[in-house]
């Protein structure tokens, strides 16, 4: 950033800046650049006012047709003056110059143009624009298909370019409460804030501008007998002195949600080059006063999008607040008194207005007198036809009341199509609007609970003479184009086309023409579009209605919405207690659910998996099973409760024993599986699939609290309290038994599916269950999580150097596939019931009701042609078959899917490819050959039993 004081008073003249006045600090000068050229402005300027002061008229190009565009407005509704801006915090695209404070050293660039804003090759789209009417892409890009054009259309679309590199701005989320939240700090908002604050209410006043005061900053008036400058100073002093009042400037209420929750995008600390912070607030308010004012609407006439055509209120605001006179000879195009007020005030403050064209005939005498006093020519009952010029305005042509076409030479047109209350937040909150015919705008009609609109936002505009606003839309001119949505290049002709194609609902119109879908969200275009739509279809604007406003009110940085939820904070990964130990062993980590777990150990994935599988089959492997879900269920009714949850019989399980079980939802679909342990008569340990513990614990809670609330039982998720070291393989017992203090592990004393707990010789508590997911002799040893590394190290030492290989999740998946053990959610989906995976006998043996039982009795759940779990072997032992490939049946030349592969792997144990899957009538088809189809390739496979290895289970019981 350059130092502003250096350039200080040497500033070159700003040709359109008045010699005095304005709320700018002329004692200091800020240097900035636009498209590489250097300019100067003052503190208090916006980027737009500084550019206008320097006579820069063309700031950008429209999105579709690349027409030159200048500043339209002086506020947040700006559709045209969108720039790429860098103030030391990186390049930010599509910044509204009218709402961007001027900062020293700021660099601004035009966007959507090449090679420059004044000569843009994209303008060819404008010269050929008859080819690109509304919805052209729905009609033109159909042959051969859309994808042939997509890349080019996507490149042409959009405005700015995304900045590269990391975002240097900080973002934070904050929460607040208040009795009254006032949106907007004009006279109406300040008045409401003062009144509530004096009553002792907790008041939050939010203003999107960098300065508090709203319209008073550019439109002084008399309030309570004083000049508004004095009144404003007094009001601010009073509010600042009260502890129950908070004032926020440079912060926009962006969204209104249920029960009076509002979001605020606070940029007050965003304009620093380093350490910039944007805050995103969620504030719950008892009451909300909406004092957001109104948006002035444009007029419709040919070429009304030329640079140098501005809203009358903007001409006024630039003249008074910034002492910037945007033109030397201003012509007004008006249909209402508010526009008159703006232009007269602009004239009185040094912006010369030469003529006013008003579409109304019956103007108030006071207006005519005022014009005469100032030497302004007035053309009543006239119809504006077209603006002449190419990169700026040269003249305005209009049809006078008596008919002849006349012309006014001018370099700026100030237009006003009336005011439309800024009711976007009101609508978001559920408020209903009503069309006010005399003012030609939509005003609040039915307040949401706790809401009140005041001032211009309620439709009460200052100093109206009583002559109604004359709706401006659809001048009789068809040449030159009359723009409704400046940014998206939507013209009256586009609305006509949409009507011809029967898009006559305002919601359809918006989506078909893209009117109102630009950065400004139709703040200056929705009313015009729906008015034209109404005129073309014989309806009033009230009958046409408005589209629904949704958050955000003005653009909010994605970063502000995300806050700190980025990087690892987006979804914090869970790490194993022994994470670093695994890393030191060369573990390759993958995401399994929310857990980071070792997939395998070593860079060569296939070799590592094969090595680990064979270690378990031939000697012993160590698996970190800590994420295994562990839920304790305790209480006098624990057994009866779980008996309703599981498909299996829980009541007959003896303490110290383990049983494998399935859980279903009420529709009879398998939602989880795992073993459950009876630790004592009234105490169970439920194991769930890794990553599923929270969901199943919540499931148990819901059933207990909502349906079985008379049962005495509690459940608690203890998954992360225990680290689990699983030893699997023929040597597992030998290694484990050498831990001093452990119980006798001999199969006679501690057979497969047993559980024990106690303390090791050194006092470390442990839980031990002999269960197997690998098909080998296997022990799951649980110790408190903080002892994970010591227990692994001791097991390793017990095994001897190099004897205990760590194994990863991928090897375990191969081991369990070799055994045909299902992995719920992989081998089952949202249609799989327990009968489909071979648990029909268990279901039928259980005589008591359990969750899902009734559903399994439906005919559909017992159909013979359901997809059932089978194993398969490709006839070519080395053929690879991916999960997801389909079993296809071919009959009479037609092919039909009979099911799909759910798991498949290259089995190091068997030296061939194996897999399991779900196929229609699978249980009865063992030995049959079928085709597996994948990506154009058919692989013949033979259907076999899903258990490929040790079907009798002798190894795991050994």
């Amino acid at each position, binding site marked *: 950033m350059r130092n502003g004081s250096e350039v200080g008073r040497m500033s070159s003249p700003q040709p359109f800046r008045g010699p005095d006045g304005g709320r700018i600090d002329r004692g200091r000068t800020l240097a900035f650049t636009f498209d590489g050229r250097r300019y100067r402005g003052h503190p208090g300027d916006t980027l737009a006012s500084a550019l206008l002061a320097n006579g820069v008229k063309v700031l950008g190009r429209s999105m579709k047709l690349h027409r030159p565009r200048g500043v339209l407005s002086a506020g947040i509704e700006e559709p045209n003056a969108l720039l790429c801006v860098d103030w030391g915090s990186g390049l930010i695209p599509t910044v509204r110059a009218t709402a961007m404070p001027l900062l020293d050293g700021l660099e601004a660039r035009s966007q959507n143009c090449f090679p420059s804003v004044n000569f843009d090759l994209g303008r060819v789209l404008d010269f050929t624009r008859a080819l690109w009417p509304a919805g052209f892409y729905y009609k033109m890009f159909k042959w051969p298909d859309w994808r042939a054009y997509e890349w080019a259309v996507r490149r042409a679309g959009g405005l700015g370019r995304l900045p590269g590199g990391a975002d240097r701005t900080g973002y934070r989320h904050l929460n607040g409460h208040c009795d009254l939240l006032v949106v907007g700090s004009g006279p109406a908002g300040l008045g409401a804030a003062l009144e509530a604050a004096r009553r002792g209410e907790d008041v939050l006043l939010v203003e999107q501008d960098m300065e508090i005061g709203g319209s008073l900053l550019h439109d002084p008036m008399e309030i309570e007998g004083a000049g508004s400058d004095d009144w404003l100073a007094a009001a601010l002093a009073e509010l600042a002195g009260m502890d129950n009042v908070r004032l926020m400037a440079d912060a926009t209420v962006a969204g209104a949600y249920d029960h009076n929750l509002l979001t605020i995008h606070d940029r007050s600390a965003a304009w620093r080059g380093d350490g910039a912070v944007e805050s995103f607030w969620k504030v719950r308010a008892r009451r909300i006063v909406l004092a957001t004012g109104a948006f002035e609407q444009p007029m419709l006439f040919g070429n009304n999008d030329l640079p140098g055509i501005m809203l009358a209120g903007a001409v006024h605001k630039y003249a008074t607040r910034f002492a910037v006179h945007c033109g030397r000879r201003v012509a007004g195009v008006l249909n209402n008194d508010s526009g008159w007020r703006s232009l007269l005030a602009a004239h009185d403050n040094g912006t010369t207005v030469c003529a006013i064209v008003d579409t109304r005939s019956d103007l108030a005498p006071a207006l005519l007198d005022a014009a005469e006093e100032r030497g302004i020519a007035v053309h009543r009952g006239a119809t504006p036809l077209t603006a002449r010029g190419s990169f700026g305005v040269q003249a305005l042509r209009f049809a006078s009341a008596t008919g002849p076409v006349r012309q006014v030479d001018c370099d700026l047109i100030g237009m006003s199509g009336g005011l439309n209350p800024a009711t976007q937040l009101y609508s978001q909150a559920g408020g209903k609007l009503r069309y006010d015919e005399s003012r030609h705008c939509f005003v609040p009609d039915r307040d949401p609970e706790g809401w009140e609109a005041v001032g211009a936002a309620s439709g009460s505009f200052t100093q109206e003479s009583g002559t109604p606003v004359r709706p401006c839309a659809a001048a009789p001119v068809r040449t030159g184009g009359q723009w409704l949505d400046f940014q998206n290049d939507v013209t009256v002709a586009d609305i006509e086309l949409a009507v011809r194609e029967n898009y006559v609902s305002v919601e359809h119109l918006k989506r078909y023409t893209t009117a109102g879908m630009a950065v400004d969200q139709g703040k200056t275009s929705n009313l015009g579009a729906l008015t034209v739509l109404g005129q073309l279809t014989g309806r009033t604007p009230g009958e046409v209605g408005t589209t629904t406003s949704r958050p955000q009110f003005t653009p909010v940085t994605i970063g502000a919405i995300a806050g700190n939820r980025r990087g690892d904070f987006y979804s914090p990964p869970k790490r194993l207690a022994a994470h670093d130990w695994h890393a030191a062993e060369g573990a390759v980590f993958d995401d399994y659910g929310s857990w980071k777990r070792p997939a395998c150990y070593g860079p060569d994935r296939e070799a590592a998996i094969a090595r680990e599988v064979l270690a378990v089959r031939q000697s012993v492997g160590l698996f970190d099973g800590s994420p295994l879900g562990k839920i304790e269920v305790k209480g006098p009714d624990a057994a009866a409760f779980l008996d309703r949850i599981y498909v299996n019989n829980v009541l007959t399980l003896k303490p110290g024993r383990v049983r494998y079980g399935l859980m279903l939802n009420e529709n009879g679909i398998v939602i989880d599986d795992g073993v459950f342990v009876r630790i004592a008569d009234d105490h169970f340990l439920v194991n769930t699939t890794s990553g599923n513990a929270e969901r199943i614990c919540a499931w148990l809670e819901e059933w207990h*609290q909502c349906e079985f*609330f008379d049962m005495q039982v509690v459940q608690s998720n203890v998954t992360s309290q225990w680290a689990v070291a699983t030893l699997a393989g023929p040597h597992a017992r030998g290694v484990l038994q050498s831990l001093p203090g452990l119980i006798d592990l001999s199969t006679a004393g501690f057979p497969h599916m047993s559980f024990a707990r106690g303390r090791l010789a050194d006092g470390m508590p442990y839980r031990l269950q002999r269960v197997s997911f690998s098909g080998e002799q296997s022990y799951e040893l649980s110790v408190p999580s903080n002892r994970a590394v010591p227990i692994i190290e001791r097991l390793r030492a017990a095994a001897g150097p190099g004897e205990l290989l760590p194994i990863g999740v991928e090897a375990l998946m191969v081991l369990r596939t070799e055994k045909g053990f299902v992995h719920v959610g992989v081998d089952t989906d949202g249609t799989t019931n327990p009968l489909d995976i071979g648990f029909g006998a268990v279901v039928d043996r259980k005589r008591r*009701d359990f969750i899902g039982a009734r559903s399994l009795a439906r005919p559909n759940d017992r159909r013979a042609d359901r997809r059932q779990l089978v194993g398969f072997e490709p006839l070519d032992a080395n053929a690879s078959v991916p999960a997801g490939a389909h079993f296809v049946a071919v009959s009479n030349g037609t092919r039909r899917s009979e099911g799909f592969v759910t798991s498949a792997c290259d089995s190091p144990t068997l030296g061939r490819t194996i897999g399991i899957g779900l196929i229609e009538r699978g249980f009865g088809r063992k030995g049959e050959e079928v085709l597996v189809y994948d990506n154009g390739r058919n692989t013949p496979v033979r259907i076999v039993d899903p258990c490929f290895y040790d079907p009798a289970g002798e190894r795991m019981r050994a």
Partner: protein
Amino acid sequence: MLRIPCPFCGDRDEAEFRCGGELPREIPQPGVDDDAWSDYLFNRDNPKGLVHERWCHSFGCNQWFNVVRDTVTHRIHAVYRPGEPRPALDGPCATAAKSGG
């Protein structure tokens, strides 16, 4: 975002809760016929007006309770605990209410 009066903790933001959907009818007896069973499983009243819902204060006390909410205004008219009788409601919205079983 709704402001929900948890009967155990008081007013909290919706983000702390999990919605369990419209309150199901009482679970039918196991011997019920297929039509009645699927009606219980899949059909909900989905009224315009007052609806009885089940919510869990999952980032708070982890307790389930019932909420009477107006689906048009989102206003919450009452909360009550599982097993408690449904509160009698009158007022402007009650005409739109269905008993919900």
